[in-house]
Structures are given as C-alpha cells and as structure tokens.
C-alpha cells in the first residue's frame, strides 16, 4: 500500500527519521519470523520509548495504515509478518525491566524484555518467573503475552495468561488503557493474552513472580510404551503430585538426541520421561516415594535420579539439544504445536507417527506429557517446494488429528497466518463470528495485525454447530425470540447476587454433571448445577475442586465475578449468544492458544455477553485450597465492555443486571 508522505513526515517527527525505515532491504528483513509465512511491510518504525507507541498508533489510525507489533519475531505461527503491508512497529528497544517488587511478588516490564533476562535478574533475589518457553533466551515477555506462550512448567504453574497481573495497552485508535485484574467485568487481560497483537499493543506489563523452589529433583524414567508413560503421568497427578516439568519423547527422538548430545538417555525404551519435582525437602521425599510407586505400577524400565547439579545439567542437556539435533540435519525445522486431552496423547502420537510416515517426512517427537501438548519437529528444505508442500500436508494432517481427538491446533504457539485456515475445522461459524466481533469491538477499522487468527472467508467455509436439543434448544429459542422482539432478559441461576424481578433466563434447568474424567482430572458440568451438588458429587468420586460448598450455581460462581480465582481452573466453555447460536471454546485441555480466550471473556461478565451453559474445569486428587467468595462488586461499565457488548449483543438481549434491578 502507498504510505502518504504526510504520514511518513509525522512519524519521522515523532520517532526521528533514523527510526523510520522504508528502503527495500529493511522491509524485506522485517517480512519474516520463524515460520514459513512472509508479509512485506511498507515501513518499519523502531520505537524507543513506550510513550511513543500511542502517538505512533494515533498517526497510523489517522491515515488508516495497518500495523503489526514485532519484537524478537521468534514465533512459529507467522503472527508478526505484515501480509497486507502497512507498518511494522519494532518494539525490541523497549527492553527495560522497570521495577521488581519482591514484597508484592510482581515486576513491571516493557514488552521487549527477553524472558531469560528477567529470570537472570530475578535469580539473585530468590525469585523466578514461571512461564519458560523453549525460546526463552530470545523471545520477549510482550511476545509471550501475544501468543500466550507457556513451556514445560505449565502444568504446575500455568502459562503466561496466569502470570500477567496488569498491562498498559494502546488500543488500535491510539487510546491508552491500564487494565488490571482487580476490576469487575470480563477478564480483559485474559482476552488480550494470546490475541497476537490483533486487539492492541501492550506497552507495559506487570507480571507475577514467585519465590524460587527450595529443592528441585530431576529424574529420567523410561517406559516400554507411550501409553504406560502417559498413564504414569496421569496416575501421578491422581496421587496429587504435580511435577514441575514432565518432558517426554519417543524412541526415535531419544536415539537422535543421544547420538548427538551423549546425555545418557537409554535408547532401547519406547518412551523417555524427564521429570522434575520441586517442593520443600520433607515433602519432596514423600513425592519421590509416590513417583517410584507409580513408575513401578506402570512397568517403568529405568529410574535414573540426578544426584547432583552436574547430572541434572546433563539430563537437561539432552532435552535442550532436541532442537539442535534437528536443526543440523536439514536447513529448516518446523516446530509443530498441537494439544489433546492427556488421555488421548498415546493414540494421537501414534497417529502423528503414521501421518509423518505417510508423507515421508522426518521429525522428532517431543511432548509435555503433563498437559497433552506435543511438538513434532519436522525437518525439510524450504527451497524444495515439493517437499515443503508435503510438510504442510503432514502438518495439516497432524492438526486434524488433534481436532478429532478433542484437542486444539495450538497449545502455545498461536495461530497467526500458519494455522489460520485450520480454524474452520476447530471452531464453528458462530464461534469464529464471535471472534470477529471481538476483533471489531477493539479494532473497528481492522488496523491491528490484520488477517491473523480469523480466516477471512469463515462465513462461507466454517461449519455449523451440532443442533441443540432439550433444555438448551428451549433456551436458545427464548433468546432468539427476545432478540426478535427487541426485549431484554437477565440470565440468572439461583438469583443470589443480583436479585432481579425482571424476565429471567434461568440456567437452573441445565443441571447435569456431564462427565467426571478421572484420567485428565477434569469435570464437565452444566451451568445450573448447584455448587453444593457439585462439591458433594466430586467428593463421592474422591476428587476435589477449588469451588466451595455454598448456595448458588456453577454458572453463577463463574459469571458473577465473585470467584476470580476460579477462572484459571476453567479449561472449556459453551455459551449461547444473543442470536441464539451456541459457541464452544476449549475442552479438557490444559493449554489452548487458538483464538481469543472466550473463557476469560465470559468470566465475570455477569451474563451480559451471553449465557454460559457448560463449563469444563480442573479437579484434583487431594483436597485443595477452597476459594472464598468476594463480595458482589457494583457493576462498573467500562468503555471496552460497552464496545464488546455493542458488537456481541447489539440489541441488548442480555441486560445489564443492575440496570434491570434499579
């Protein structure tokens, strides 16, 4: 696209002429990331101070120039290229750690801070930042937030989403907002995390930091099959031991690593598990005994503990060398990313091997055994177009296999351009349309990182949701009717928090606990299930959740905003929208980085954006700390909430509860 001279002059005035590059070479060098996608921008703006971002975005908005935020550009999804031209905002110079507050266990950082740099600065203070993407020595906190990156420690500590406490965001119109987790309403930070820069640009981030664990112990365990390896992991979780890392690989990968890194990996086992426990020394001893018992029960062949720091480093050297092993065999390594429920891992991995074999593609196969996230690392030469197409087909096959197993097409890498076309197989037209509406609410002009995540032709290509039945169908019909008649309803459960007398859409009919999954440690329940029933039923199965035994329903606990601590435990959601359509997001998945996070959108939204009908959330083998309800907060409408509401529910079918009660 042609950039108006006036816009260039204004930008040069704002950031200095040396920070605005328009020459061909600079543009070509900003057209790639670690994926196969390319997109050449029309200008590259280097941002040296956070305050400049808002001013730059205002200029770009004024001249209707699309823009893409970029810092280290290490992502595998094609999220930071500019396929429709426009401007690249190079945020890499925003690499200052502004403040580390050990008392309140948080740190303020700029988006260009390299993740490992933060760890390096925290270590002498006795703290660490939990998310640990494999590229942590190069990737940035801003990039981690954009992709919702996580890493090996995700099962125990959660992903980037769980470690962002506040963020300063420049919206696509240049307006600056400070978003905090304390405010009422939807969890906007949750929505922004993983949005790949399509909703705005983050300029300052407040992250959670944690005290370094007292003791860490590392073990290398081998199994006769992938199934026994995954079963051992499930059994360990069932016994209440959540390991810090559970990195696994199949035999082919272990052999390749061993021949390269000589890390002492047994080469005769079908599956190798590198497991790490961290806890206080006395508890670690107990956990180790449980681990040994679980391994024995699952026919583990070898159990090799690292007895000192040197041995630990050697074991990790093997795992860390996995990428290098592949990178030296061929010019290109495509790190694929898929996630399935943990119980489906063995079957999916066998399918993946079969797909790779069918397409005559070489790959190593690594997986985070605890959270069902796996990474085939496919080697090829992108100069060979025939081979590259085979690789693409193999990747599509793998992602399709994930979808069929109830998984997702991205656990931590994001969608970008690379997987955008696969989104129609993962989500229904209604869900993709909801994503598009969220995007429009934040960015009506479509300027922020355009053409990413949502397939442009989804209205034609995406499928419809399975037809609704029973109570859900009735509720959907009621909502449709309300919209046709232009009247509002209030979604209620036990009607405890916002007591309304207005026409209510009750969830009480949705009172089934659909499935208690003791392999993945997830429960799937409808929104109208009373908390008391839920807690008692779980207890009768010998499992526990963080929800208390109080009056009220599951949907109420999730939507009212009284249990913000619960959001991190929710992994899947179904909801009815204002047009009566049903949307689904997530499932029995620990990780999901495909699309905008609808769980966080509906969480605390008090039924104003849709009616939550079903939730999937984590349960535990041992009693865990039960959440205490916060007092009902007065509803404060924010401009962002209003904007999303206008797009998602233009006829105000789902009324603001407090307005109705007034």
């Amino acid at each position, binding site marked *: 696209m042609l950039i108006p001279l006036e816009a260039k002059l204004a930008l040069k005035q704002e950031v200095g002429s040396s920070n605005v590059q328009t020459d061909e070479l600079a543009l070509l060098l900003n057209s790639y990331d670690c994926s196969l996608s390319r997109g050449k921008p029309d200008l590259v703006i280097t941002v040296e101070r956070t305050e400049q971002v808002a001013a730059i975005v205002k200029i770009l908005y004024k001249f209707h120039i699309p823009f893409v935020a970029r810092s280290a550009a290490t992502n595998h999804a094609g999220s930071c290229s500019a396929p429709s031209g426009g401007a690249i905002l190079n945020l890499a110079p925003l690499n200052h750690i502004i403040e580390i507050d050990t008392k309140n266990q948080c740190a303020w950082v700029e988006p260009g801070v390299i993740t490992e740099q933060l760890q390096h600065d925290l270590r002498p203070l006795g703290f660490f930042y939990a998310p640990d993407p494999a590229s942590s020595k190069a990737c940035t906190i801003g990039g981690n937030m954009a992709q919702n990156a996580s890493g090996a420690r995700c099962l125990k500590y959660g992903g980037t989403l769980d470690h962002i406490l506040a963020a300063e965001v420049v919206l696509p119109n240049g307006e600056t907002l400070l978003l905090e987790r304390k405010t009422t309403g939807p969890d906007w930070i949750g929505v922004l995390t993983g949005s790949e820069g399509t909703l705005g640009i983050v300029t300052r981030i407040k992250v959670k930091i944690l005290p370094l664990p007292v003791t860490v112990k590392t073990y290398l365990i081998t199994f006769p099959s992938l199934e026994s390896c995954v079963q051992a992991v499930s059994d360990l979780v069932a016994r209440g031991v959540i390991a810090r890392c559970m990195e696994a690989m199949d035999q082919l990968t272990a052999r390749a690593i061993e021949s390269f890194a000589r890390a002492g990996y047994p080469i005769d086992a079908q599956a190798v598990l590198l497991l790490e426990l961290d806890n206080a020394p006395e508890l670690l001893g107990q956990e180790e005994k449980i681990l040994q018992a679980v391994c024995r029960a699952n026919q583990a062949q070898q159990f090799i503990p690292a007895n000192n720091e040197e041995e630990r480093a050697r074991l990790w050297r093997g795992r860390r060398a996995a990428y290098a092993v592949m990178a030296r065999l061929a010019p290109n390594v495509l790190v694929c990313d898929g996630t399935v429920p943990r119980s489906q891992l063995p079957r999916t991995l066998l399918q993946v091997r079969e797909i790779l074999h069918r397409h005559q593609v070489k790959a190593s196969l690594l997986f985070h055994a605890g959270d069902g996230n796996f990474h085939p690392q496919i080697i090829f030469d992108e*100069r060979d177009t025939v081979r590259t197409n085979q690789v693409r087909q193999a990747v599509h096959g793998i992602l399709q296999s994930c979808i069929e197993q109830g998984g997702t097409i991205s656990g931590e890498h994001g969608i970008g351009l690379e997987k955008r076309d696969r989104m129609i197989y993962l989500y229904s037209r209604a869900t993709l349309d909801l994503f598009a509406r969220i995007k429009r609410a934040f960015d009506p002009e479509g300027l922020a990182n355009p053409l990413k995540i949502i397939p442009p032709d989804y209205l034609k290509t995406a499928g419809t949701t399975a037809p609704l039945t029973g109570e859900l169908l009735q509720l959907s019909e009621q909502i449709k009717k309300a919209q046709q008649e232009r009247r509002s309803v209030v979604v209620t459960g036990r009607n405890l928090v916002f007591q309304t007398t207005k026409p209510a859409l009750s969830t009480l009919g949705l009172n089934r606990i659909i499935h208690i999954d003791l392999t993945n440690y997830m429960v799937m329940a409808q929104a109208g299930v009373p908390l008391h029933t839920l807690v008692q039923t779980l207890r009768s199965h010998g499992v526990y959740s963080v929800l208390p035994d109080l009056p009220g329903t599951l949907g109420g606990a999730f939507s009212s905003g009284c249990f913000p601590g619960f959001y991190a435990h929710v992994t899947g959601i179904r909801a009815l929208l204002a047009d009566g359509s049903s949307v689904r997001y997530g499932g029995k998945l620990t990780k999901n980085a495909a699309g905008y996070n609808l769980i966080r959108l509906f969480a605390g939204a008090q039924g104003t954006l849709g009616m939550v009908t079903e939730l999937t959330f984590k349960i535990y083998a041992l009693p865990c700390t039960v959440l205490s309800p916060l007092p009902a907060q007065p509803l404060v409408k924010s401009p962002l909430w209003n904007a999303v509401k206008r797009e998602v529910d233009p006829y105000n079918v789902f009324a603001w509860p407090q307005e109705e009660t007034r």
Partner: protein
Amino acid sequence: MTSPKTDTSMHQLHQIHTAMGERNLYDSVSYCNRCGMCAPVCPIYQILPRETTSPRGRNQLLRLWLEQKIKPSLADKTLLALLESCTLCGRCKQMCAGDIPTAEHVLEMRRMLRLSVLPSFLQSFLQLRGSHPFLFSLVARLGIFLRKVHLIQIMRTLRITRLSAFKWLARLDDLLPEQVVPLERKFFPVVKQAARFAVTPPACIYLPSLEAEWILPQLARDTYKLLPQPVLVWRHTASGLFEYVYGDLARSRRLLCRLIERHERTENGKLPLVTDSIDVYLFLTRAGQVLSGQPAWEERARRFAAQIRFVTDYLPATEKVPSRQRVQLECGALFERQGKPFTQARQILSTLFGKNFVQCSYTDTDIPAFGYGFTLHNRAAEIDFKTVAKIARTKTKSVFTLSGLAALEMNRLLKQFYPAAEAKHIVHAKR
C-alpha cells in the same frame, strides 16, 4: 541442494567448513531457520535492537542476495550498516542450533562487495607484514620512534587526530602501552638453532603473533618458556589472517600456502605449530576452508590444520593459585566462541582460581572491537561500556584474554573506566 536461481559467480570461498561438514555458501546460509536465538547475544543488536543490525538479518541479506531478490550496492545504507556493524565475534554461532557461521557469511559479503572497513593507510601498512616484511619492520620502527618523540601527542594537541583520516591514529595510540618495546632480536636462541636441532629435533614450532613480536614481548617470552623445548621460532611470519579478514582472499591464500609449504618442509610437517593468538589459531584451523576449491592444496591444508595448537594445550593448571581476587575469562575472538581452546581456558582458570573464577551470563558482552573486529567506530563506546560494567559489577580484578590484542584493548578500557582491574593474556595466569 542449490536453487537454479542462485548467483554463485561472485563467490570467493568455495566451501564453508561447519561442524556438520562442508557446505557451499548458499547451503550454509539456508540452514538459518530464522529462529532468532542469535539476536540477543549480538553485541550490536543489544545496543541497536532491530532486524537490520541482527545476525539473522545478515544471514537473510546473504540469502536474498544469492537468490537475486535484491541488488546489493554500496550505496545502500541498510546493507552497509548490516555488513559494517558485524564485529565477527561469533557469539551468534555459539547460540545457533544450526551452527550457522554468520561471521564467515559477513566476510564473504564484504569480499564480494569489495567493502573496506579499515582506514586505507592502516590497511596498506598492515598488509606490508605479509608482502614486504622488511619494509613493515622499518615503518613500524619509524612509527615507534615518532611516537616516542611525542609526534602523536603533538598531533592530538593540534587536534589533527580529530580529522576523520587520522582518527584511527588516536585510537591506536590509546591502545598501545606507554612504551612500545619490540621483542628483542636476541631473546630466542636463533643463532644456535641449527646446531641444537642437529642433536635434538625440535618439539614444536612457535609462531608469535604480531602483537607478541611488536608490542607485548613478555607474551612471546612466556609462551616460549611454556612450550616443550627445543622450540623452533618462526619470526616475522604472516599467517594470512589479516588479508582474510580485510578482503584480499587471493593474498591470504598465497601467504597461507607459503606457511603450509614451510611447515611441510620442516620435519615433514609433523611438528605442532603453536600460536599465542586465538584469532590466528582459529584462522589456521580453517586452512581447509580458506583453500577450498583448490584441489592441489585442500588435503595439504587439512593436514596442516590438524597440527595447529593454541597455548592452552601447554598451559599446566594443576594447583590452585592462593588468591582471593576474582577473575574472568574474556572470550573475545574471531568467528568462534566455543571449541577446545575456550573449554581448556575455562578449565585452567577454574582449577587455578576455583570459586573466584566468575562465570558470565549468555548476554554479557565482550569487547567486539578487539583485534580483527576493529570495524565499529561509532558504536564501540557503548559496547565498551557494557563490557566494563560487567567486570565492575562482578568486582573482578583480573581479566584473562586469549590474545594479546584483546588484552591491549581491554586494558585501554579498564584504564579509562575501571582502573581497579587489569587484563592479561591467559599465558600469564600463573604469574
């Protein structure tokens, strides 16, 4: 595989030797998977974080060039910035999973563009060492004399050194110790060599570096004493490294061939050839690469490269030095940051100083302007400051280097910013 579209007509190096075998330039650069792990460790990217000053950008530039997607020109400022800013330190290679030799790629691009990064007088003068050693010696002695009679000081007072043509002179003046004393001719038992070797054949050959011969005689003396006697010393012998780095590959090859021939003539090429400069060591171990495409020389070059040794091979480190002072290893070198000499140096310092040997973070910089990375004029100060800050932060007292040139450069900085510490060649670690 090679794409039919690639332009190989301008290549000067035929093969690049990597840890994974020999590759042509296009294959070598194609192994860059664009993962970006190289960027945070690049000293230039650390101060100018943008793609147009990153190692990944340099590799992608070469690829675009070879695929004829751009037409390179010296008038292109972005291209010049990419090529001139590289300090050839090889930190990017150390981080790269694919072991991409980015510094070699940059050198090749500079050669293809005939890009000169040194002031022309300095370049001509230093080239004399290989082509006309006697003349070089004469000019060098004249220079030392003129400095002794304060000519450079006078030029500084008159602000002549602020003129762009003479800026390098002031920098060189800063680099050199107060009194420059070349290695005395009589130190090595040259005259008696023939007689001695008739009885006992030499155990090794010592090839003193330029700095050991002209600026740091103690380095040459200490290295000599370290080596198994009797030592055959090859004085005033240019390796071809200077020409390799600063553009004239043909001349570099001629000098290297001359060295190989001389080595083969001496005890049938069986003697280890020892150098005190990591840069020279890394260059000579690449002899096969430098002479690739020349069938008569390739095999001989490989045999020669197998005989190259670095001083750390002979440095005994069996007992701990009773010192409480903290020490660091400055890895500033051309092309590489890993390999035998680096591991040996770390082990030696670890044995000698135990816990007082300070390990650095992967993003800590070294001085890229060391030695042959003398290319970055306008940004050197920022990197210098970061390097010294690292030393001051860890309260290090001694910084050990792997070349005399690095020690000189480091001492210049320490004198300016952190006089509490001093830099020494690793040969002096036990002193």
